[in-house]
């Protein structure tokens, strides 16, 4: 087993290697390399080959591309290196003494599936290449190969790894920037909600989603469905509040031909139609009491009886229910069945109202403006004054109210910027009512025509955040200040809670 050869370098310069066993067999001197890539910097390459000259030659070539290298003569040595090192790429000879290359490949992919393995074959048979690819090899190269072929292959791996990493980072950034499964927000309350959603998604129990009107209960239900094991099955939302009781019954349980006037054909109910998927019962608190008992029976027995039918139909469905009512109170008042409440309330998700997570408002504004831009092709931003109004408003209609307010503002504004005047009067008036309280925090108005530096700084920060749709980290980077400084400044301005 060889020591790691990590060589810091400047682009275009050949490193000065030590002379001896651990380094190349030449007395290296510093000289210019025309095409040496530095893309592979910090990538760890393990070369497994029983032929010393090949092993060391490949090592030296890889080092010219910026790889940190390890070498092993056989599979056992390779496993030892893998146990103690973060290896990104393996160049694996298929013909090894002891454990063969294919078996080694299988074991490596089993232990560390993320590692890219390039197999080196001397036989060049189609079978060995196919087998290697079946075992998860990224590519294969046939001996004899020269330095250029090796460099091209390693460059390709580097490019692939770079893309994979970028994709992963982008996905994480999108997730971190916006939230989780269609939900937008990074407030601690939302982070907690995301964690519970993840747990709920991986279980099969009913989930009760509670939250005020407009908080996004259906979005949460969809997040539970689409991040869980039911994601490939149907997601069927049913609004119990907007349907008349008889219609809810026939929709949920289905009906047989002749069950009632107009039932000319039998119809499958949504609970049966879900077939392994999810039925989301929105406004479950509005479900009539007689249907509550029928639903309870369906959940307990896992079968339903269609309207007018005599035969039970088996169902395989997960129930997610949501309500903005206090169900415990409804149980005490006798308008909601206690046993159904307990049946549904196995897992509870509580969505915080928007007034309790106002720090998410800039993110939500950015999200909805981006969506409007995608729909209309017009890019719009929001003025500081308008954003400040939105931050002071209490949002009784929660995210839905904010969404509608922005849609309305986008429709009303004639320019690219949404101003206070474009917002609904309720929001403007709210500000007027609270102005007296906010007056001490109002920005200093320059009366002499000279703008204080602090004010200019504030404007620059708020404008940057506004233009970046609330992305404070990016704003800090572009403004050339630390994120801690930016957050401190925002706290000073009262722009973040």
């Amino acid at each position, binding site marked *: 087993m060889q020591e790691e050869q990590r060589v810091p370098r400047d682009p275009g310069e*050949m490193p000065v290697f030590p002379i001896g066993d651990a380094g190349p067999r*030449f007395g290296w001197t510093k000289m210019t*390399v025309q095409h040496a890539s530095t893309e592979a910097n910090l990538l760890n390459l393990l070369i497994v080959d029983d032929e010393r000259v090949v092993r060391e030659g490949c090592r030296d070539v890889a080092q010219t591309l910026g790889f940190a290298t390890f070498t092993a003569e056989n599979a056992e040595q390779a496993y030892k290196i893998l146990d103690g090192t973060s290896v990104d790429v393996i160049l694996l000879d298929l013909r090894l003494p002891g454990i063969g290359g294919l078996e080694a490949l299988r074991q490596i992919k089993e232990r560390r599936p993320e590692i890219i393995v390039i197999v080196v074959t*001397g036989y060049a048979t189609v079978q060995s290449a196919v087998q290697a690819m079946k075992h998860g090899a990224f590519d294969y190269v046939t*001996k*004899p*190969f020269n*330095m*250029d072929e090796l460099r091209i292959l390693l460059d390709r791996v580097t490019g692939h790894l770079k893309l994979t990493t970028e994709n992963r980072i982008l996905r994480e950034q999108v997730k971190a920037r916006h939230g989780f499964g269609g939900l937008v927000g990074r407030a601690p309350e939302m982070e907690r909600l995301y964690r519970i959603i993840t747990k709920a998604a991986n279980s099969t129990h009913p989930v009760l989603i509670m939250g005020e009107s407009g908080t996004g209960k259906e979005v949460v239900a969809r997040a539970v469905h689409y991040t869980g094991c039911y994601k490939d099955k149907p997601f069927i939302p049913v609004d119990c509040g907007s349907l008349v009781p008889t219609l809810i019954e026939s929709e949920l349980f289905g009906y047989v031909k002749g069950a009632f006037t107009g039932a000319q054909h039998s119809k499958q109910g949504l609970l049966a139609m879900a077939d392994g998927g999810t039925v989301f019962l929105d406004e479950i608190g509005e479900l009539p009491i007689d249907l509550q008992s029928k639903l309870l029976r369906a959940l307990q027995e896992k079968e339903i009886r269609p309207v007018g039918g005599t035969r039970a139909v088996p169902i395989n469905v997960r129930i997610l229910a949501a309500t903005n009512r206090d169900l415990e109170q409804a149980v005490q008042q006798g308008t909601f069945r206690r046993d159904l409440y307990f049946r549904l309330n196995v897992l509870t998700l509580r969505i915080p109202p928007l007034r309790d997570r106002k720090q998410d408002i800039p993110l939500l504004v950015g999200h909805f403006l981006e969506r409007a831009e995608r729909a209309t092709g017009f890019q719009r931003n929001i003025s500081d004054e308008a954003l400040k109004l939105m931050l002071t408003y209490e949002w009784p209609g929660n995210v839905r109210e904010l969404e509608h307010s922005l849609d309305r503002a986008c429709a009303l504004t004639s320019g690219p910027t949404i101003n206070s005047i474009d917002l609904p009067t309720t929001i403007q008036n709210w500000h007027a009512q609270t102005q007296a309280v906010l007056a001490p925090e109002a920005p200093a108005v320059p009366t002499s025509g000279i703008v204080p530096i602090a004010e200019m700084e504030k404007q620059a920060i708020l404008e940057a955040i506004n233009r970046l749709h609330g992305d404070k980290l990016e704003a800090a980077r572009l403004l050339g200040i630390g994120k801690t400084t930016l957050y401190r400044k925002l706290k000073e301005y009262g722009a973040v809670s």
Partner: protein
Amino acid sequence: MAAVMGIRRQLHDLSNILTGLLITAGLLKHFVPLTGNGGRYADDLEEGSERAAGLVDDIRREIHRLEALVDKRGESTIVCDARPSLGQQSGEN
């Protein structure tokens, strides 16, 4: 077919040796400052290794061809089919 397997093993060893030579020649040419006739020697070494690698590929293809013939006609006829072909190949070279 046992003879073919033997040739395969020898080819593998030869491929190993040639890979080492090719890579060493490439490193020598591109990354080691050579004076006097050094550059020419490195070029010769690389060129010779490349030609040898080409010959290995030719032999490998010939083995594949022979194996295909075995699959198609059976081992008893392979000797008659294979020898003229190998002979021609050697003659051309």
